[in-house]
């Protein structure tokens, strides 16, 4: 697969960062359709690009035959996004805090921290040898009302 596959509530992309704008475009269109207010759209879009980028680079190791899948849905007062890669997993407990002094000037390693800061719920299911699945949720106010 060389192009994203888009369905009503899901986008699947090959593991290349060139497809991040496709994910962002899909997600922002869905969030606007859900009536999510603009500031929350940015928080959600930032968080999703963080996790998708991790899936592309660290999970799937940039192998284009491996996919990153993003599913999105609105459930009552919150939006839920599930991101799955096809990589070999990692131990979330081993991820260092990017706000420790020794890590402050590192160029990478902030993605999960930022997603946890901007979203109301982040659940990472992963272990060495298995694919990674991340569930993100954010409470929303209906901006369209």
């Amino acid at each position: 697969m060389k192009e994203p596959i888009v369905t009503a509530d899901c986008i699947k992309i090959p593991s290349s960062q060139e497809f991040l704008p496709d994910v962002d475009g899909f997600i922002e269109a869905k969030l606007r359709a859900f009536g999510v207010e603009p500031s929350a759209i940015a928080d959600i879009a930032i968080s999703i690009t963080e996790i998708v980028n991790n899936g592309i680079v660290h999970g799937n190791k940039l192998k284009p035959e491996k996919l990153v899948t993003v599913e999105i849905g609105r459930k009552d007062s919150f939006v839920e996004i599930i991101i799955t890669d096809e990589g070999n997993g990692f131990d979330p407990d081993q991820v260092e805090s990017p706000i420790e002094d020794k890590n402050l000037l590192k160029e990478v390693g902030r993605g999960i921290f930022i997603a946890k800061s901007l979203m109301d719920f982040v659940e990472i299911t992963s272990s060495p040898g298995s694919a990674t699945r991340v569930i993100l949720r954010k409470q929303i106010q209906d901006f369209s009302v």
Partner: protein
Amino acid sequence: MKITDFEKDGVAVLEPKGKIMGGPDATMLHDRLHELIEHGKKKVVIDLSRVEWMNSTGLGILISGLTTLRNCQGELKLANVTDKIQSLLTITKLVTVFDAFDSVEDAIKSF
């Protein structure tokens, strides 16, 4: 994303526009920033007024520019940081690392 740049009073000013999320947009900013440094520019301001938002990739590019410049006795300063980016700088504690100014003029004068 689009990037324009100009020079004033010996300071290179970069004006990225759009979102910085990784992929081709981020590469463009990284490459332009490092191109300026390779051409001997040691005083650089990035005007963030037209950056809708950025993620950790964008923050990584800013850090890369800052550390590269400081290693050659230069400095990177930020101008017109939007609320969304300011919030990211605060939660990541990078607000303690970057000098940020309310305008490009103020950032240029600070060198």
